[in-house]
């Protein structure tokens, strides 16, 4: 009786221990003291091949945990969660995190490959001098439409308000991008903090309502491919996926302007394996590795050396990348982009606008 009870308490306890104990790892090669790296990023954003190559070279096991939005990641880190070595926040989120003191500076001497980054993408407003971040992927947020399905080829955001697009628009489910679009149509700044301007933007959006088929931030291109929608606001990655499926899907920056985003590798405060983190960033900047990302995910790669490498290693893929505005926007496109900036206290105004607009 006693033995049975002892055994039945030991087994769960042992299971618990087994579950929590770290697995034995071979000693790290290449002079690193850490044997593990805790990566916290968007899902489907870092190719498994890249992680495997990194482990093969440095003997460091990579734990790839995922989040599905910047805000989720911020909530967790702000509440005090630690243990992550690398996160990949977007531009405006870097500004927020720096203000909250959540990031540690990078040791740029350990990242000589930083020179591979195209100079126009370095030194952004949210991190002058790249002390805390290294660009990972970048892209745009603009207008995608189906050339043959759409009644006419839209050239501006205002075109989407045309009754010909009734019930045929797909928009991102985003409380900054959609109001930002309305602000730009009205001629205001996309990052406006004026309550009056936001009120006008809300009314403008309400006028658009009859044209909106659905809100979708996960796969807006699907609606364009199936023909359920004819145009919409989406990220370049989605447009590229759509274009690969159906060449009639085009992606332009409207007259009023469009969005620009950067995702960046950065190190949270108190990262347990900073040396492995630096090694990873440096490794990921190597042309052959960086191009793996472009091969799997159709975003724009800020690594100039990687694109040069692609020209010779896979000319067809290079042509596809360079040929479409979603992956390789021409200078006229880029000149009309505006990045989303942190609006501080006005964030509540945007939230209210969005909630009220969707509720009406």
């Amino acid at each position, binding site marked *: 009786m006693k033995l049975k009870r002892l055994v039945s308490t030991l087994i769960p306890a042992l299971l*618990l221990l087994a579950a929590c104990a770290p697995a034995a790892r071979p000693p790290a090669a290449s002079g690193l003291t850490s044997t593990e790296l805790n990566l916290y990023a968007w*899902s489907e954003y870092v190719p498994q091949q890249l992680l495997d190559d990194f482990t093969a070279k440095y003997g460091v096991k990579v734990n790839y*945990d*995922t989040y*599905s939005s910047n805000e989720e990641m911020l909530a967790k880190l702000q509440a005090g969660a630690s243990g*992550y070595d690398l996160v990949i926040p977007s531009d405006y989120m870097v500004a927020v995190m720096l203000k909250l003191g959540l990031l540690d500076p990078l040791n740029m001497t350990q990242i000589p490959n930083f020179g591979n980054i195209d100079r126009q993408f370095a030194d952004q407003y949210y991190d002058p001098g790249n002390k805390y971040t290294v660009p990972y992927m970048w892209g745009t947020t603009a207008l995608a439409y189906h050339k043959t399905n759409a009644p006419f080829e839209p050239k501006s955001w205002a075109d989407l308000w045309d009754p010909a697009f009734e019930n045929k628009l797909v928009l991102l489910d985003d409380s900054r991008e959609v109001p930002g679009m309305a602000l730009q149509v009205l001629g205001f700044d996309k990052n406006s903090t004026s309550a009056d301007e936001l009120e006008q933007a809300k009314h403008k959006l309400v006028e658009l309502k009859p044209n909106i088929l659905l809100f979708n931030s*996960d796969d807006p291109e699907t609606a364009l*491919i199936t023909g359920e929608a004819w145009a919409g606001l989406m990220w370049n990655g989605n447009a590229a996926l759509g274009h690969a*499926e159906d060449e009639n899907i085009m992606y332009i920056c409207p007259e009023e302007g469009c969005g620009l985003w950067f995702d960046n590798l950065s190190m949270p405060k108190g990262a347990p394996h900073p040396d492995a983190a630096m090694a990873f960033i440096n490794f990921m900047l190597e042309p052959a590795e960086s191009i793996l990302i472009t091969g799997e995910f159709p975003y724009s790669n800020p690594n100039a050396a990687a694109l040069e490498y692609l020209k010779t290693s896979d000319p067809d893929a290079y042509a596809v990348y360079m040929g479409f505005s979603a992956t390789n926007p021409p200078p006229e496109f880029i000149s009309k982009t505006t990045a989303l900036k942190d609006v501080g206290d006005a964030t509540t105004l945007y939230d209210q606008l969005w909630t009220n607009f969707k509720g009406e």
Partner: protein
Amino acid sequence: MSEKKLPIWLRAYGLAAYLYIYVPILILMVFSFNTMKLNIRWEGFTFRWYGVLFNDQQVILATRNTLIIAALSTLVATILGTMAALALHRYRFPGYNVSETVMYIPIVIPEVIMGISLLVLFVILKFQLGLLTIILAHIAFNIPFVALVVRARLHGYDNAIDEAAMDLGANELTTFRRVTLPTIMPGVLSGALLAFTLSLDDYVITYFTAGPGSTTLPLRVFSMVRFMVTPEVNALSTIWVVAVFLVLLAGQIAQSRRT
């Protein structure tokens, strides 16, 4: 027992209800064999995605974690929940009403609040986030569910039976083992099954209390779906549905054999 046959409209209605629930799942399962990556239209038949799934280290790790967490948290929560239910059923003590209400808070409270407050607690106590913290969190929200179900089962239970057993010479532990537990066992098992399901399913609380390397299946699938829904997710869902179906079927067969 009524001799009447089931009227045709009732049969039709039942069939419609089943179809409404299961046809979407069936379509999901069929499309796990689709060759088209974006999975919008049916293009062709392939087992490819199952191959991708079995090679996906992240998913395998997540599945392992999910099962360990569910098993351990269900075990502990069932024991503690049953004890709580028995205590509330048998005894009256100062603070009874408060205890009862407080115990049911995790059922009512929004998961985000529970998740963040648990995270803050773990940070203050300097617990390293990982499988252990997730299990503790799951035990915390599972106990009231188990207690609720067991209490329902205890509702008609006459304490006199326990007293009779003890009058006949059984000590308390024997009474529990031989008299009380067998009677409330259906409730305990239902509670355990509920706790298991809730644990397998949980996203929000798990998200906040997970640490590096301790990702679970719901976390993994949710973020997979966020970016691109390939048929790999369908394949995962198909395997999951089939596995659960087989387990429940086995349970049903075992139960019908006993009666």
